[in-house]
Structure formats: C-alpha cells, structure tokens
C-alpha cells in the first residue's frame, strides 16, 4: 500500500533541494550569483568547444576574467548576435575576429538574453576558481620527436585509431605525401595547414576542439586526447616543413586503376562464363568468307 507522503513527489523534492543548495552556497561567495545546472549544461554544449576558462586560447579567446575586460551588456549582446557585432566594426570584436583567424563565432541556437546572463555567471564563477572545470586540454610543452611524427602519420591515415573512436583525418582530408590515392576531398588540403593556423599552438587549439561546422559535432562527442593532438601537430608541422604546397593530384592514377580493375573484372567474368552461349550461325558464315577470300587472294 502506498503512503501519500511529502517525499513521494519528485518535483517537490527537486524544488526543496534547489532551495537548500542556494541557501547553503550563498555564504561561500557572497558577491557571485550561483549559476544553475542548466547554465553549466548550456556552456558545455555551446561554448566549451572554442573557449576555455583559464586554459588559454583555442579558436576563441580564453574567457577567464572576460567580465573585467568588457561590460556585461556588451558581452550579452555579443553572445546573442556575434556576427552582427563583429560586422558592426566594433574595435574589440574586430581584434578578437582577427585572432580567431577570421572564424565567426556561430549564433548560438535558441539563445536568450536570460541564458546569456546565466552563461556569464558561469564564466564569473569559474574565473574565480583556481582551476576551472573548463580549463580545457592541457598540452605538454615537450619537444616533438620523430616518434611523434610517425605516430601522427599513423593517426592521420587511420592506421591507428583515435582512443575516442573519432574518424581518421584521412577520410576527409588529404595532404602531400599521404600515399595511395591520397585522402578524402571533402575537407581542405592540409599540406600547409600549419602555416594557416600559425604553428603548433594554433594547430593544437584547432585539434583540441575543431570549430568548423562539419567537424565540431563529430569531435565534440569524441575528442582527441592530448598525446594524439601532439602527434598530429608534429606530423602536420613535419609535412609543412617538406616545402610542398598541396597534395599530389592522384585523380589520374585513380582513374587508370579504376579502368584496370574494371578490365580485370571483365576478364574474370569471361573466364568464369567461358562456356556461355556465343553466336552459332554467324561464325560459320564468317569462317567461310575468310576461307573464300584467302582462296581468291591465292588465285
């Protein structure tokens, strides 16, 4: 038999828990509002892939102490309409845009001024911590070795899987010296990517959290780990150092190989079905015509 008790209602229990949490947390940081779980989730979803809090620049700037750099109103406006603010010619926004190498911050879907405020609360709270949970991936500064280059090459070509199960670079990108018929052509050629992203730091930032519309959703759920990022960085820098501009054009080799393979398959079919029907009467007539022509040529 069920007893209708107070604790029986989950909704009520959650409400009580939220009130209790608020009351308990309030004395610890008196000036700072406590952001909700919802705000944290939103930061995870929308911001984390391009921004760290105290972890250094990724594609977007490090957000630690951003509230001290810009006003809350400016920041809310930027979060809601990043492209509009950048394009309006705002000096600070322009500078950030340049630092991001011309990557616009995407307009967050379903963003409201209230949520933007809550996100800024998250940033404020996390900035005040010694080490934020959004400090991002910490890459070691160790020198890159030949072994890193070799491993990077294997990772790039998919010979070694990423620990997270993320797809290999090779499936969408190619570069000089990729081998075989080259890699995929969906993404850009990566031969000179190290120069485009201005070296190790830029490369590592991109690889830690790829921001492009195609890569972001894939690598957000299966990010690369620090050692993998380092290895790939080493490989890409090594490729750029070789001096090549773009990957060799493998399309002719691909075409010829395709034709060769098709011919091989036809030959195989011919062998397998060598007992098949071929014309009966026409060859008899042809044979006779050849014989007669030979006879006429002789006389």
């Amino acid at each position: 038999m069920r007893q209708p008790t107070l604790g029986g209602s989950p909704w009520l229990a959650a409400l009580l828990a939220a009130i209790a949490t608020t009351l308990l947390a309030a004395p610890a940081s008196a000036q700072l509002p406590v952001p909700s779980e919802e705000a944290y989730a939103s930061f995870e979803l929308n911001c984390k892939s391009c921004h760290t809090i105290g972890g250094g620049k990724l594609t977007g700037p490090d957000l630690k102490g951003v509230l001290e750099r810009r006003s809350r109103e400016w920041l809310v406006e930027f979060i809601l309409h990043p492209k509009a603010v950048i394009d309006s010619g705002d000096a600070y926004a322009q500078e950030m845009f340049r630092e991001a190498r011309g990557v616009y911050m995407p307009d967050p879907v379903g963003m409201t001024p209230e949520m933007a405020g809550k996100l800024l609360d998250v940033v404020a709270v996390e900035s005040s911590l010694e080490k934020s949970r959004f400090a991002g991936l910490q890459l070691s500064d160790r020198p890159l070795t030949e072994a890193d280059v070799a491993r990077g090459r294997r990772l790039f070509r998919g010979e070694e899987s990423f620990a997270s199960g993320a797809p290999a670079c090779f499936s969408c990108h190619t570069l000089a010296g990729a081998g075989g018929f080259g890699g995929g052509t969906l993404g850009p050629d990566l031969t000179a990517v190290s120069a485009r992203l201005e070296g190790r730091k830029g490369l590592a930032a991109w690889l830690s959290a790829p921001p492009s519309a195609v890569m972001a959703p894939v690598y957000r759920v299966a990010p690369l780990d620090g050692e993998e990022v380092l290895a790939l960085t080493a490989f890409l820098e090594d490729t750029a150092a070789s001096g090549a501009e773009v990957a060799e054009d493998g399309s002719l080799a691909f075409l010829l190989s395709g034709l060769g393979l098709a011919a091989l398959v036809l030959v195989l079919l011919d062998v397998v079905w060598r007992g098949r029907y071929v014309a009966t009467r026409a060859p008899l007539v042809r044979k006779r015509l050849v014989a007669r022509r030979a006879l006429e040529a002789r006389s």
Partner: protein
Amino acid sequence: MDVRSQTALVFHLDKCIGCHTCSIACKNIWTDRKGTEYMWWNNVETKPGTGYPTKWEDQEHYKGGWELHDGKLRLKSTGRGRIIPNIFHNPSMPAMDDYYEPWTYKYDELFNAPEGDDQPTARPVSMVTGEPIDIEAGPNWDDDLGGSPVYAENDPNLDELTPELRQQMFEIERMAFFYLPRICNHCLNPSCVASCPSGALYKRGEDGVVLLNQERCRAWRSCVSACPYKKTYYNWSTGKSEKCILCFPRLESGQAPACFHSCVGRIRYLGNVLYDADKLVECASRPDLELVDAQREMILDPHDPAVVEAAKANGVPDSIIESAQLSPVYRFVKEWKLALPLHVEFRTFPMLFYVPPLMPVIANKDAGPVRNETEDLFSDIERARVPIRYLARLFAAGNEGKVRAALRKQYAVRLWRRHVTVGDVDEETARRALTEAECSPEEADAIYRLTALASMDERCVVPPAQREMAVEVLDDPLSFKQSTGFGFRAAPARGQ
C-alpha cells in the same frame, strides 16, 4: 510392370520428297500468331546440314538432353551447381539468329510505287521490329544443300567420318542428301519436362503427349535449352514457351495431326504403343550402343496376354489396347525393326521413329561421262553415297548394325517385290536377300503393303480419346445437357 500407352510416330524417310507441306499446314494452324512467326513446330531439314536452329544436334554447345554421370541420369543443361550462378542468364540459350529473324514483304509497295524506269520491288521487313532487314538466314536456308560449304560441312554428325569419306560426300556429281522432317518427339523421358522450374510442362497420362501449360509457364526458358531437339520455343510476345501439341484437339476427335494429314508423300505413320514405364530409368542408363535395343525393350507386345492383363490392371481402357494391336508404329519399330529413333544418345527416348533412307550408290566419273559403278542403283548399301556411319550417328547412337539391318531389309523387300511384280529378279536372288535380312516373304509383303499401299486409316491409327472419362472426373456432363439448345446471343431488351 507399369504398362502405359504412348502415341508414337514413324516417318518413312525413303518416301519424303522435302516439299514442306507439313510445315506449312502446321504453321497455318498453330504458329502464325504474333511472337510465333519464327517457330516451326514442324520443320524439314536437309541432311547433311546444320538444321534449324543451326547446329541443334551439337549438345556440347546447346546442353540439351541427359547425360550419364556416375551411372546416373542427369540433365546436361541444369543442375544445382550450374543453375545458381547462371540463374539470371542461361548461357546455353539459342538466340534469334540461330533460328532466323522472321520477315515479310511490303507488298503494297508493288502496287503503290510511282511509275519509274525500274520494276517496283517489295522490300523485306522484319516481323519482329517492323524495320527493313537484310535477310541472312531462314528456317530451311540450307535446303537441298544450299550454301553447303557453310552449313552442310558443319553438320555435327560428320565429326566421326574419315577425311576421305567427308570429302567424298561433297564431291560434285557424287553428292547425296535426304530430308529429315522433325516435330516434337513426345519423348518417354522428356528433358524439357524435367527441367521446368515452374512445373508447366507435363506428359499427358493417357497418351503421352507432352504439353506446356500456358498459365503456369514463367518464362524461365529452361525447356528451350534442355530439349536436345530444340522443339520448345519461346514466344517473345506472350512471354511463354510453346511447343508442338501433336494437334491434340484433332487427335481427340479421331483425326490425324495436320502435318500427318497433309503429307504428300504419305511418309507419316501414327499409332499408340504400350510400354513399361518401370524400365525407363534402367533402360535410359545403358551405354550408347545399347540404347536402340533398350528402347525397343521398353515397348511391349500388345498381343501378349500378360501385357494386356497388366495394361488392364493399370487402367488402360480396352479400346486403347485394341488400337495398340493395330498400331503401324509397333510393326515398324518392334516387329520389323525398320524404324529407328533420332539421336537416341540424348537419352530422352524420342517416340518419333525414322525409317532410314536407301541412298543411291557412289558414281564414278573418272573415265569420261558419269557412270554408276554398278548396274543396280540401290544394290549395295555399303557403297551408298551417304555412309552408314553417318546414318548410324543420326539414328542409332553410332550403332551401325542397327542401320545396316534396317537398310538391308528395305533392300530385300525391293528385290522380293521386283521378283513378284516385275519378274526381272530371279526368285533365288530375292529369297537369298530376304534370308540375309532375316525377313520372311510374308513379312516382306506386309512391309510393302504398309509402305506403299496403306490407306490413311491404316497409316494413322488414332487411339480413341478417353476425354469423356477425364471430363467426368471434374464435371457432370449431364448438367450441360439441359443447358444447351436454343438461346439468345444477346439478352433481349424488354420493357423500355
């Protein structure tokens, strides 16, 4: 003993003049519909020749009939190992060019052409596409050895002849040929029936006529490749296969099939024989040289009381047994051993038998004008222009003795009748020939009578159809009795 009745046929090749009347009679009745223009359920071939469709006898090419595999009978065309990789493309299917592309002429151009310097001509047009065509082949393109360097020289039956014999056959002034009319053999062991994946083909119980159910046919065309005689045809218009039905509507009303009825040379004989179906598998598995005897062994003597009793016990009606006792086929095949099956090595046991033709002997033109080496044109069967070995390949699976016996008996009958009616052959010679051919004067007279004098009713003893009994199984005939008579073709309109 499982005694059954089979409607069997004999074609007497010594009498065939190659007029194609049979083919035309058949074509006009059965195959002048769209999609059947190329079919000749009855066709007449010139031998030596490649026939219709081209080289149909070459089973290495067309994979028809049965073969012995570890002593067991097996279809040459299909088997699980062969059919599955080829399920969407049968590699042994004859194409249209192997038959021929049927055509007609634009006759109206003869009448409607504008006046000009030249005679108007009727252009040939394909009956398949309707487009003008260049005629390259026809169903009897090599008639009377026409185009023999292409056709006759490639006759598969010539393969075993020595080069000298081959050359001799095609020498000018020595050439010889004969005609081979062909229809469906309504085989005892039909490979077309065995090959059909849809079960559309069946051998009719009461008379052994092989029929193809148009409603069950699913256009697999397995029968086309499996029939070694290439006597099932695919109708490209209806998408069903068709074959000779031995004019069963005529048979059921007591008439001979159209090709029999129209035969000018009266070469065709029809009658039922009783056979023992239990022996079929064992007989069809014998070595090639024994097959003629094996088939004869299956055919039972309808006068033997034991056979009659077994037939009755098996439900064969008395009228059918009586008809078998009158059958000319039984006499030609079993009693006289004159008629032989065509290509019995295909192991389908064809129930159409041929009396091999007596051919003129070799002539010699070395010294001046052509002269025959002997006075009597048909004297020496060993020196006939068409070698016995060739005939043996056609009619006895290579067993020359069977052909020689049949020819010798025909020759003896000629001598005997020459002695009786003309008198220029003395009795001693005639009797010696009969003895050599193991034939009595009475038998010779009987052969002469059935060969030369027999009436239509003697040549074609159509077994009385038992359709009324078959109908009673399904329907009550009396229920129709009251519904026939006067009536309206269209319902009358009243009360308007």
